[in-house]
């Protein structure tokens, strides 16, 4: 394998880990309460603005921005749950699309009104520039985002599958009434899911802001990637989102290199439809 191809695959993996991180919140909500959050991309967008604000107001780097963004978006998630989602989750699927799309427009244009339409970028130097290892060039900001993405997605997966609180959340997602009879409070678990999803999403935003432009409408682009990643991996499966994210990241960067940057999305979408043809429930979803 040529060195260039290795470079391409490595950057694809790093990108894929970030995709996995900002999709894991979406898949958690989806699996927990069968709600598609059409405002998910705008949650990421606000996470990115949190990082921009931490930099412009305090001069802080990612280690200050990550906890701030996590807390802000977790709060936003819990607020959305209690004020909106709780009331529409038992309604028809269309009510969920309507409600969360309304929320998306609300957040997007609130950002537009407050921050303006201009693109904002964080300085390259904020996360140690770039370095070279064995002939492969790494950009500090992308390595940080990729490694943290991988770590947090795995942590989320372990919390859901290996801890008592994870089992309780799983019980609520399978049968809320039965869980309630066992002494679990469904609303508390669902609010917790929104807090965890929000925190993961906020962290993803704060990390992406280091190498991607921040604008009020950036969420639309990111939401589509998240939707594809989540259904590719299977709704509700964090591990599925991780595997799908990595596959999509690598496929994107290899096809951008081999065919041309314009066609990278085309390859991903075709692959996605093919996967659903053979596995209608996604890679790791339950049938």
């Amino acid at each position, binding site marked *: 394998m040529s060195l260039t191809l290795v470079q391409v695959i490595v950057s694809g993996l790093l990108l894929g880990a970030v995709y996995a991180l900002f999709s894991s919140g979406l898949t958690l909500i989806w699996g927990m309460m069968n709600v598609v959050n059409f405002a998910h991309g705008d949650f990421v967008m606000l996470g990115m603005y949190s990082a921009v604000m931490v930099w412009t107001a305090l001069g802080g780097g990612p280690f200050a921005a990550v906890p701030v963004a996590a807390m802000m978006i977790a709060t936003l998630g819990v607020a959305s749950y209690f004020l909106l989602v709780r009331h529409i989750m038992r309604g*028809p699927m*269309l009510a969920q*699309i309507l409600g969360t799309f309304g929320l998306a427009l609300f957040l997007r244009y609130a950002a537009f*009104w407050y921050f303006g339409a201009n693109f904002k970028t964080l300085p390259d130097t904020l996360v140690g520039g770039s370095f070279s290892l064995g002939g492969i060039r790494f950009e500090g900001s992308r390595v940080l985002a990729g490694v943290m993405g991988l770590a947090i997605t795995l942590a989320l997966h372990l919390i859901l599958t290996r801890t008592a609180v994870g089992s309780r959340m799983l019980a609520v997602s399978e049968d809320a009434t039965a869980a309630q009879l066992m002494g679990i409070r469904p609303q508390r678990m669902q609010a917790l899911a929104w807090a965890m999803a929000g925190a993961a999403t906020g962290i993803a935003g704060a990390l992406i802001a280091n190498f991607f432009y921040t604008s009020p409408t950036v969420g639309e682009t990111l939401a589509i990637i998240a*939707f*594809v990643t989540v259904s590719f991996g299977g709704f509700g499966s964090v591990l599925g989102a991780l595997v799908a994210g990595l596959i999509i990241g690598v496929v994107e960067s290899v096809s951008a290199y081999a065919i041309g940057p314009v066609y990278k999305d085309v390859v991903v*979408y075709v692959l996605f*439809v093919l996967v659903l043809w053979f596995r209608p429930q*996604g890679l790791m979803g339950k049938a």
Partner: protein
Amino acid sequence: MMRWLIAGVLALLVLAYPLLVDGLPVYQRLGALVLLAAIGASAWNIVGGYAGQVSVGHAVFFGFGAYAAVVVYTHLEWPPIAGAPIGMALSVLVAAVIGVPTLRLSGHYFSMATIAVGELVRVLSSTSEFLGGAQGLGGPAMPRSVFDLSFISAAPFYYIFLAVLVGLLGLTWWIEGSRMGFYLRAIKDSERAARSLGVSSGKYKLYAYMLSGAFTSLAGSLYLCMFGFVDPESGFGILISVKLVVMAALGGAGQLFGPLVGALILVPLEELSNSLLGGQGAGLTFVVYGAIILIIARFLPSGLLSLLERRKVRRAD
């Protein structure tokens, strides 16, 4: 009796609207835009509302219609409206190609697959030389004959759109009462139950999808005739797909007049927001726009028309 009287007065008002606001071109235009949006959302309603298959990729058909109309002008110098039947025929074919693999998917998976297909088509259209690439294509700059449908006033468009909408709603009403209408509602309630009773759900879902695609394409062609321009974002953009869903859901999906009610509310709001966007408080009106959608979803999850249903129930008690 009372019902017929109200319906008659409403019909007269709808017919006379452009004359009532004569001399106020902004309002004539607004009326035409509401009707155009209602055509698109009513077309979506056939598969999304009645059959319950929530497509979030209907911009594919809208874009096919708009591009078919502009392409017959650019490459053949025909009047754009001549592209409408071509776009509709193509959309039926495209619906079959997209529908066969995606309609097997259930619930959210179907919606997500249609989003992906929509984005796929958008990206491909922006790389196509034939379709004018990312810049898009424009229709005739100067009208050559009346068939180019280049009117200065929006009133003629209003009546053209009204005729199409009435035809589409008539067709939908006929389907509602037909065997197919019952099949579609059965599929929406429980596909498994419908199939166990012998409904070929795959076939009827596909029919609904193709019919819906054809009329969404017609909406696209009409859009091009009025605006004279289309690019990948305004033809195939995901926002078009989402707006069709939101309008139908806001009024009441799976109900004859639901999409029209949704369009009556959303289009004026959006036009107002757009006209204010340049000035001070840019974006604030869209914040209100989002909040209104959000609040309706929160308190009336089945759409605005469910208010009338509630009244009916109360009266029956």
